[in-house]
Structures are given as structure tokens and as C-alpha cells.
């Protein structure tokens, strides 16, 4: 194997950006159906990461927090060069990751390592622990002498608490418990002496009783090896313990970022607040019924207009991006709630097929079925409004009337919120940074 090209290892001071991300976009194209391709129609695009700018500072633990589909894992993978960015820049130690030639990139990659969620899937079942942990050294051509390789592997294993190493080296992953496997995965990550470790949900598959041990180990390694962590997780409780700074992601964008202390003390974005409220409190004396946002993370192939969180947000108002699909959700939620009650089936029949509302438009036009009138539809909507006038949806409605036998509904102009300073954090929410 040829020796890898040398890449300058710049001296980055503590607190300076180790990774610098500017307007990063990572899109995945989805293949349409067979019929779509026959007629030449393109499949859609999932904007997994949609315009993220972010620094990972040397020596910090940056928590990247969000639910599944938020793009947090894709962002981590794009930094590692495991996924190619669609546009934007990722710099690692000053090198543009997307444009470094492969040979040089291998040398860079030695300094950025990753620990994935599932320790079982991360280890080749046919490799012994010693082979797995020593593999990076062999791949990068850093140690060819078998004796010395074994010594280095033993050192790494003992460093992560798998001591005495001799007891583990010739075992297979299936002989180890979940916690032990994750330790072996961490040993494999640190054996190359990296500067950056991307940890993607490293403890969420483990039992509660071992999570603390693995987090403690990671904190220890960080001190001893002068590491920088990108901690990708959905769990704000472990992130609180572990992170210096937190970035909250929702549907491909950062909605709030700041020092961990500020975010936990005074969360700004309604989504951050919801995530914090969703963590079950292990204290029955304090458990109160929680007010959680409705619905789930929407389909990233067709995100909501304006702020992606607006359909679930209890505080959404005029500029947040109200659209036709929100009307559909409003009606469906009502019919679900009242299923089986008198009059509901009649309402369903009156509105008929709601597919007309499934395209994201800032106005809705509904035609009543034969024999019914737009005035009847209007009356139903007015009744819904009277029953729950505080429903945020109504703030988004600019005009609602029956015109020419059609129900016409216009929403306020949608605005994309952008990150702006608010107190000690940056937040992307119209409540804090009103659109011009």
C-alpha cells in the first residue's frame, strides 16, 4: 500500500473552528415509481440538510439534537465525507472536505472518527475484537508489524476500560454485551488518535444502567486525548449532561443554537420547548399532563411552507406559512375526534375528497358536491372556528368566503424564519425575529 499523502495538520487553538460549515445543503433524490420513470417524470427531492451554517469549535462538545428526519445524522455524515453535499462548504481544519482529492482525504479522515448508534451492527461478526480495533491502523498503513499492532490494540482496549485486554482480544462481538461492544467501537475510533469524534446516538441502544458508564468514558477520553465531539442525539437529557453547546434541528434546518446552559435555562423556539417537555420526568409527584405538539415530523420530500414547525406549533401566527394542507389537517383532526358522532359523516360528504388540498398552496378553493352549496361549507368552517377560536390555524386565514358557488380561503403570505440573535442564543422563529 502506498503511504498516504501528507496533509498539513494545522495548529488550531482551543475554541477556534475545527469544522466550519457554510450554507450546507445535502439533498437526496427519491426515485419516482416505475410508471413515473416511463413517462420521464422525475422523482422528488428530500432536503435532508437545507442551508445549515455552523462551527464546531476545537475542544467543545456540540450537541446536534432533533427527532428522526431532522437531518442531524445526514449533517454528521456530510461532515465526515460519507455523504456528498449538494452545495455549500464543509471545512475541516481549513480543508474543504468536498474538494480534497481522495488520497489526501484519507489522511484527513484519520483525524475524524465516528461511533454509531448500534454497536452490534458496527462490528463485523466475523472479526475478532483485536482485528476490528486494529483494522484502522492497517487500512491507513500505520502499523504493519503484527506484534506492535497487537500492543497498540491492547492499549486502546485498556484505555476504554476493556481490561485486561487479553481477555477480550480474541473474542467475537457476539461474546460481548452491548456496553462492551460500544467500548470496543470507541477503542476502534480513538486508535488513530483523531481530533474530531462524531458520536451518533452512542448510548440510545444501551440499557439505562450502562448509559452513564459510556458517557463517562467519552468525557474521560475527551480530556485525555484533547478531542472535539459532535454528539448527535434525540435525547435532550443526556445532551444536557454532556454538551457545551446545542444546535436544535428540525426538518433540515437549525431552529435554535446556543450555549447549553442558556438553552436549558431559557429555551426560545416552541420546538425546543416541546422537546424538553416531552422528556418523561422520573418523579411521579411532579408528573403533570404534558401539553405536547400534535402530529409528527412532516414528510421532508414536501415540507410545510414558511416555518416547517408551524402545523404543530401552539404559538404559530400570521407569517408562519399557513397553507391548504393545514385546512385538510384541521378537518381530518375534527372528524377523527368526533368519529361516530351524529353529523360527522354528513360533513365528510359535504367536503368530499380532500385531495384538492394536498398541494402546498397559500389559497384553497373548494367546490361543493352536486346539490350542496358553498354557503353550507362556509357554515361548517365558521362553526369549527366558534368551537375553538384559539386554534392557531385561524390566525393564518386572511379571507374566507363563499363566492360564485365556491368556497374561497386565502392565507397570509408565508415567511421563512431565519436564525437571528435573541438573548444569549440564535433562534429561527417569527416570535423573536419578526419578518420585515
Amino acid at each position, binding site marked *: 500500500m502506498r503511504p498516504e499523502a501528507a496533509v498539513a495538520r494545522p495548529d488550531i487553538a482551543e475554541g477556534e473552528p475545527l469544522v466550519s460549515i457554510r450554507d450546507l445543503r445535502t439533498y437526496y433524490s427519491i426515485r419516482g415509481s416505475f410508471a413515473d420513470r416511463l413517462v420521464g417524470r422525475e422523482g422528488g427531492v428530500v432536503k435532508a440538510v437545507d442551508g445549515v451554517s455552523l462551527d464546531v469549535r476545537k475542544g467543545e462538545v456540540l450537541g446536534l439534537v432533533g427527532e428522526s428526519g431532522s437531518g442531524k445524522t445526514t449533517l454528521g455524515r456530510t461532515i465526515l465525507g460519507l455523504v456528498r453535499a449538494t452545495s455549500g462548504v464543509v471545512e475541516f481544519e481549513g480543508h474543504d472536505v468536498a474538494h480534497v482529492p481522495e488520497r489526501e482525504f484519507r489522511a484527513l479522515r484519520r483525524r475524524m472518527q465516528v461511533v454509531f448508534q448500534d454497536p452490534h451492527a458496527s462490528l463485523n461478526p466475523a472479526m475478532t475484537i483485536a482485528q476490528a480495533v486494529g483494522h484502522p491502523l492497517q487500512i491507513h498503513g500505520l502499523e504493519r508489524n503484527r506484534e506492535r499492532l497487537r500492543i497498540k490494540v491492547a492499549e486502546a482496549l485498556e484505555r476504554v476500560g476493556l481490561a485486561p485486554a487479553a481477555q477480550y482480544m480474541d473474542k467475537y462481538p457476539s461474546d460481548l454485551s452491548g456496553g462492551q461492544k460500544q467500548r470496543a467501537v470507541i477503542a476502534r475510533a480513538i486508535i488513530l488518535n483523531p481530533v474530531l469524534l462524531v458520536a451518533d446516538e452512542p448510548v440510545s441502544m444501551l440499557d439505562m444502567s450502562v448509559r452513564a458508564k459510556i458517557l463517562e468514558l467519552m468525557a474521560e477520553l475527551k480530556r485525555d486525548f484533547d478531542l472535539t465531539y459532535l454528539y448527535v442525539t434525540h435525547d435532550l437529557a443526556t445532551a444536557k449532561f454532556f454538551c457545551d453547546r446545542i444546535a436544535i434541528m428540525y426538518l433540515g434546518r437549525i431552529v435554535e443554537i446556543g450555549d447549553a446552559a442558556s438553552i436549558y435555562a431559557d429555551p426560545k423556539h416552541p420546538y425546543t420547548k416541546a422537546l424538553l417537555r416531552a422528556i418523561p420526568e422520573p418523579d411521579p409527584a411532579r408528573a403533570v*399532563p404534558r401539553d405536547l405538539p400534535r402530529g409528527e415530523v412532516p414528510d421532508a420530500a414536501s415540507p410545510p411552507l414558511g416555518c416547517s414547525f408551524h402545523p404543530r406549533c401552539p404559538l404559530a401566527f400570521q407569517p408562519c406559512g399557513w397553507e391548504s394542507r393545514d385546512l385538510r389537517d384541521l378537518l381530518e383532526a375534527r372528524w377523527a375526534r368526533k368519529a361516530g358522532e351524529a353529523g360527522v359523516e354528513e360533513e365528510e360528504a359535504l367536503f368530499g375528497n380532500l385531495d384538492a388540498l394536498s398541494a402546498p398552496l397559500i389559497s384553497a378553493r373548494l367546490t361543493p358536491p352536486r346539490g350542496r352549496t358553498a354557503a353550507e361549507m362556509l357554515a361548517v368552517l365558521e362553526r369549527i372556528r366558534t368551537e375553538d377560536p384559539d386554534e392557531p390555524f385561524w390566525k393564518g386565514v386572511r379571507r374566507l368566503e363563499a363566492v360564485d358557488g365556491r368556497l374561497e380561503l386565502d392565507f397570509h403570505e408565508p415567511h421563512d424564519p431565519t436564525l437571528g440573535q435573541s438573548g444569549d442564543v440564535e433562534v429561527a422563529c417569527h416570535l423573536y425575529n419578526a419578518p420585515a
Partner: protein
Amino acid sequence: MSDAILQVKNLRVYYGTPGRPVRAVDGVSLDIGESEVVGLVGESGCGKSTLGRGILGLLPDGARADGEVLYDGQNLVAMSQKSVRRMRGPELGLIFQEPMTRLNPLLRIEGHFRETLEQHEPNLTDAEVRRRSLETLGRMGIPPTRFRQYPHEFSGGMRQRIMIALALVLRPKLLVADEPTTSLDVIVEGQILALLADLKNNFGTALLLITHNLGIVAESCDRMAVMYAGRIAEEGPVREIFAEPAHPYTRELLRSTISLDTTELHSIPGAPPNLIDPPPGCRFHPRCPNAMTVCAQLEPIEQRFEDGRRVLCWLHGPNDRIPAGGGAPLERELLGVADEA
């Protein structure tokens, strides 16, 4: 408890292995009252899922059960597979984790409900089937407009709602939910737990909630049972147990839960024992910070407290059964990572 709708009495479930059997559930007794929400917690491998399946008679081939599971005066353990199957659904329901894999991808949601209701209540008319299905789905937040869609058109959270509705449409008296929110996002998890906690109000259904997350138990359950190595270490009202855990294992499990209030990380040394050859005496003694010499020698005797709790730990006596010198601290080697979970 006299108004228990289900009583588990000294249930044992053994799995056959080429060597000796794995004693996954080893002498468990547990009552579930009408409309009661009972949490069953423990680390992986403690036997909590096996207990849940044992109650429903859903054990895999090669498993042997003895003891009693009494429901409506009948012992499910002694009943034929066929009779148990007839009770499963209308009397005893089940919700699994991973709702993705439990719905038939080729069958519309409507088809799932039709099949379920036709199987157990053949006399219902089509209109009744539809009304009952839509009503139950609606309570779970699934709108009637989506009744004719296929499982792949729903998100993970909605599929779990559909699974719950599918169990509830038969109006069972007891629902066993095995880690029903494990693969879901935090906010959706909260939504589903709120639905489950509401079952007693909406459907009068009792719930056995199997989970490893103590936060979930604190929030949703009336009573809890802490399982360790095939046995119930402590059982009683949730408030009392969280306020003052009697068993050292319960206490350590509580301390190692990471929540927003955690200021110091804590973990339990060692790992749960294998269930082929569990430690003598109290099964927790090798990991227990409070272990006494008696704990390594004699099996603990169940003690009952006035607040309705029972605990399996020598720290709570009976003192007259502890041999002389048995109260001295147990001397042990330090546990290493070698024994970690």
C-alpha cells in the same frame, strides 16, 4: 387484591437449551386490578417480556410454563392453545414494539379491522364494523378519511396508533404493551403514552406496560413491579416506590436514569446474571452495594409493607430468619467492566 381481573401466581417460564434451561421467569406473582395501569420494569434480559408473553399464552415453542395465570376463574397456563387463542383479543390484547412490522402491507387499514372483528364477533353487520372501527381509530387520532389507506401511507407514530386501535376495537379487559414507544420519537412517544394512560377513562381497559424507562412508569402507571433476573424484586404503588425505594436494585435503577435533573452520572456496576445458573441467595447480591453475608447464602423472603408494597430483600427482614453474623457486610471482589452489561 380482591378486585384483580388477572392474577399471576408463582409463574415459571423456562426456555429449553441444549444444556440446562434458561429460567426467564422464576416464580412470579402479580395482580392487575380493573382499569389499573401497572408498569413492569427492568434491564434487558430480566424476563419482563417473557412474563408479558407468558400472561397471554404467547410463548415460543420450546418454552415451558407452570404456575397459574388466572383470568375470569380460569387458569390460562393449563388451558389448551385453542381456548387461549379465543380469549386473546376480546379479553386480553397485546401491543408490540415496532409497529412497522406488525401490519400486513397488502391489507388496507379497513381490512385489518374487518378481519379482526369478523374473527371475534362474527355477528356484527358491515355498518357496525365500520362504525366501531372508525370510532376507535378516531379516539386514537386517525381520521376516517384514511380508513382505506395502506400501512405504508402512515408514519411510525400513526401505525402504532392503528395497532392500539386494532387491539382496543375488541374492547379487551387487559392490554399488555411491550415497549410500545421504543422506536418512536420523543414527542410521539409522549402522545402515545398520553393515549395509553387515558385507556382506563375511555375504554375501562387495564394496562400492563412493559418498559425499561422509569420516566414512563412515573408518568403513566399506578403501580409498578421491578423485575430482576426472573423475579419481582419490588412491587407496589408508583408514588411510594419512587419516593422511597425499598430494594437496593430499585434505588440504583432510579439513580442511573438520566433526566433533565441529573447532576451526577450514576450506574450500576456489573451486569444482570445469566438465567441458566443465577447466583445463589439474592440474585442481585453480586451487584448490590448493601449486600450482607446472608444475601449470598439464602434466598430472600418476601416482605409486605403497610403501604401495599412487597419487597424481596434481606435488608427488610425477617430478622429472625437471618443467621447469626448474617447481617455483616458482604466482602467481595470489585466488579470490573468484564461483567458489564
